[in-house]
């Protein structure tokens, strides 16, 4: 039985249009999840979200379309047992909404220009990062203010210059699960090791690994 995923994003976006990423995600989750795109994410309701096994945030225009009702629905969806995959810019709405920052365990602060970043697996033993191969790529290095209380497991760490920042982490929230994947500025970001992380995150959500 195919599971259902709702992708939140913007076809016409200030920085990160969702079109190419949607095609990549359809290939990643082929045979596991059907993906529906939702661009009117400011009008999300808990009732609507409840019918999905996974919500993927690639939101890029929260400042214009976002609403407190939608944040309440998203956080409640996860607390009630839903699964949230937050990708790159899909974590940025944390600047406006502390509830969403608390859900992710991080508040986005900003990022310098793209740099060459080393991504490496941490010592945490988790099915999502099992057999992850360390790699380097040019990416935006997102800066976060991390929450002290979130019981997160950091699975992949990013390093450049003297900076070392979590790049992939996961945790449970209420009855639900959250996976945050920081790299994802362009379609090319979702190749190789990151693609495997996304696939396994989907399986972890539905208890297949």
């Amino acid at each position, binding site marked *: 039985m195919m599971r259902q995923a709702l992708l939140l994003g913007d076809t016409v976006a200030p920085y990160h249009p969702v079109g190419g990423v949607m095609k990549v995600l359809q290939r990643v989750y082929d045979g596991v999840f059907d993906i529906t795109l939702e661009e009117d994410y400011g009008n999300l309701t*808990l009732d609507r979200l409840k019918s999905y096994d996974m919500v993927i945030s690639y939101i890029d225009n929260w*400042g214009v379309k*976002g*609403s*407190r*009702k939608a*944040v*309440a629905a998203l*956080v*409640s969806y996860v*607390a*009630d*047992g839903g699964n949230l995959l937050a990708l790159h810019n899909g974590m940025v709405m944390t600047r*406006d*909404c*502390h*509830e969403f*920052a*608390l859900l992710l365990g991080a*508040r986005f602060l900003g990022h310098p220009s793209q740099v060459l970043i080393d991504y490496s697996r941490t010592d945490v033993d988790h099915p999502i990062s099992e057999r992850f191969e360390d790699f380097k790529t040019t990416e935006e290095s997102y800066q976060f*203010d991390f*929450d*002290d*209380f*979130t*019981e997160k497991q950091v699975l992949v760490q990013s390093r450049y210059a003297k900076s070392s920042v979590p790049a992939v982490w996961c945790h449970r*929230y*209420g*009855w639900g699960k959250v996976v945050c994947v920081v790299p994802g500025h362009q379609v090319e970001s979702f190749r190789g090791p990151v693609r495997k992380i996304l696939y396994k995150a989907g399986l972890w959500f539905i208890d297949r690994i």
Partner: protein
Amino acid sequence: MKKKLFLSGDYTYPLYHPLKNVDSEIFAILGDDFEFALNTEHFESLEDYEYARFDTVLLYNDHWIDKSPTVHQQVQALLHYVLNGGGLLVVHNLDPGVDYEMAQMLGGALKKTLAPQNHRHIDYFPAAVDHPILQGVGPFSLEDDLFDIHHDRLTDKTVLLNARIEEGIEVPMAWAIEFGLGRVVYIAPGHDVTTFRNPEYRKLLRNAALWTAGGLPGPGKDTSL
């Protein structure tokens, strides 16, 4: 019409803070505005839809850790309730903060009670903010506990009350949070029944209960950003 309140605290096995005797003061402070729709110390199995009938929930529990390992149900139910428009007022006992999601929603967790415990003289001052909870509330002094609180830096809170612990040093002792579509208030003083008899404290508690129940105007009504 009176609003509906769910009151919980520990009658049978309180660690330090029995609800007995405190409850009668709470009834007197809130009785004109609230109907006490439920008063139980056992709410670990209460489901989210059962909270929907309350306008606010007042927790005075210091036995939280014993209830927590059930199935995480009380955490899910309270998160769901507040996110979808419910009110939560936690008085004194920050014990719900042992669950991290609750610590985030409450704005922090207890690190420790500072010595001397139980009956330390504390001067409280309303913060210089325009908030409906502070209407008519003046400075006051109590013999109470002083908590060392680990504040959550990501929780957007409006500090309502500060304690002056030394000349020039004030620490937050009550705050208000808009969380999802709901409202949360934490009030640190409340160690025993004498605190609940202080006239300024009574005003603060009544206003806080009314605000969390949506009965006072102010921040929290706007659903746009």
